[in-house]
């Protein structure tokens, strides 16, 4: 009884509710983004609009969402409407009382950004001394009140060879999941690309190691969100979509209400305060192009194209100007066959 289906609305909204932040991360995608924020009453009506459109979950991000003055009220309102509410945070502001408050506001899952098992490496990368210790403490506080925990790690030059250590660290801190996010070339991620990004061959080595950890470790969910792992034969049979999920399962909303396909594609396709979400989802020509990508270059004839669909659309667009171009992280060569793990 499994079937193909064209969804009538996004399943998830990734909502960058603010862009203010207490950290200075070297890969931040939103550091130079708008600092305009929706007024409180507008935010409430937008949340209501999202719920009415049929969206099932909102993941708040930023900036650091806990710096938003109304985050708790907004989250509480959203969860009261039946939306599943989660958040990505740097953890700095989450002590035991805050964890209890977040639980009361309806948060069911919180991802804490930790980029290295080594405190000094993480603190330096995040531009905040002591941030590793506070992030680890936050994980404990969140877990103690019964909110599911995840560690979000952006893979780049500082951690690509530390898969085993990162997974052990996550297990030691009883995180339910470790999310290895692929490096995006947006914002400071683009400015600092040469220093932080890996070569295609290095990505291949990283993903081999990460997929082995995913297979090996049963006590934690090792999550990989990069479509190019299809080149290693890692096909997610439980997913309803191929390639990037952006624009197929999820959309991004910026702090000023602008709707973009994902947080790393700076193409505005509407605004949640003025537009009908379902109409944007159905009629956006940008989303249509993302859902119907055409293979170009080495993707043409690649045996894995139907699974990876050219890899990360955001990365292809940022680095080549054309979302149909092959993902610059792809290690495949013209006419090459991919390999199994």
């Amino acid at each position, binding site marked *: *009884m499994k079937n193909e*289906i064209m*969804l*009538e609305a996004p399943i998830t909204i990734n909502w960058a509710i603010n862009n203010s932040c207490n950290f200075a991360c070297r890969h931040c995608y939103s550091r130079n983004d708008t600092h305009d924020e929706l007024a409180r009453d507008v935010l409430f009506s937008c949340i209501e609009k999202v719920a009415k459109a049929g969206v*099932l979950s909102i993941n708040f991000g930023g900036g650091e969402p806990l710096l938003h003055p109304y985050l708790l009220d907004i989250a509480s309102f959203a969860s009261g409407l039946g939306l599943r509410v989660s958040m990505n945070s740097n953890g700095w502001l989450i002590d035991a009382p805050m964890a209890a408050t977040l639980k009361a506001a309806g948060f069911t899952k919180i991802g804490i950004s930790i980029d290295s098992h080594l405190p000094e490496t993480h603190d330096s990368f995040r531009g905040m001394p002591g941030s590793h210790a506070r992030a680890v403490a936050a994980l404990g506080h969140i877990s103690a009140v019964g909110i599911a925990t995840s560690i979000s790690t952006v893979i780049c030059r500082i951690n690509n060879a530390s898969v085993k250590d990162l997974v052990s660290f996550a297990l030691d801190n009883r995180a339910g999941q470790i999310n290895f996010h692929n490096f995006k070339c947006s914002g400071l991620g683009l400015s600092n690309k040469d220093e932080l990004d890996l070569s295609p061959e290095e990505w291949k080595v990283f993903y081999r190691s990460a997929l082995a950890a995913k297979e090996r470790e049963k006590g934690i*969910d090792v999550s990989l969100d990069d479509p190019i792992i299809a080149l290693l034969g890692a096909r997610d049979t439980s*997913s309803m979509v191929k390639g990037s999920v952006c624009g197929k399962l999820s959309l991004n909303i910026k702090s000023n209400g602008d709707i973009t396909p994902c947080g790393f594609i700076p193409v505005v396709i509407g605004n949640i305060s003025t537009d009908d979400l379902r109409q944007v989802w159905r009629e956006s020509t940008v989303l249509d192009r993302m859902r119907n990508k055409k293979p170009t270059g080495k993707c043409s004839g690649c045996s894995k194209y139907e699974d990876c669909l050219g890899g990360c659309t955001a990365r292809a667009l940022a680095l080549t100007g054309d979302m149909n171009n092959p993902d610059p992280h792809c290690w495949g060569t013209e006419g090459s066959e991919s390999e199994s793990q």
Partner: protein
Amino acid sequence: MLKIQRNPNVMWREESDALADAQVGLDRGDDIEEVGTAVLFSGGAMLSINLLGTEIWKLCDGRNMDGIVKELFEQFDVQEEVLRADVQAFLEDLLKKGFITHEE
């Protein structure tokens, strides 16, 4: 007999347009087995299910297998043993994927 419950962690949604299409097809006598009418999400796992699957899913509210089959038998023009086999196979798949739970 075991009570069958939807896992409360599963997010799910009926797709109204697809549901209307399936209903029209059903009334016309079309084969609508491949028409997805609802989506289920649990962790990273996703499932699109057809009209019969959707009706089974909605009935996973603490009833047992007999209760689900009885309710569906009144809705669908199908032999009871065929229906029971379909329901059983579908529920086994949902259980294996963690979308439902069994309670004594």
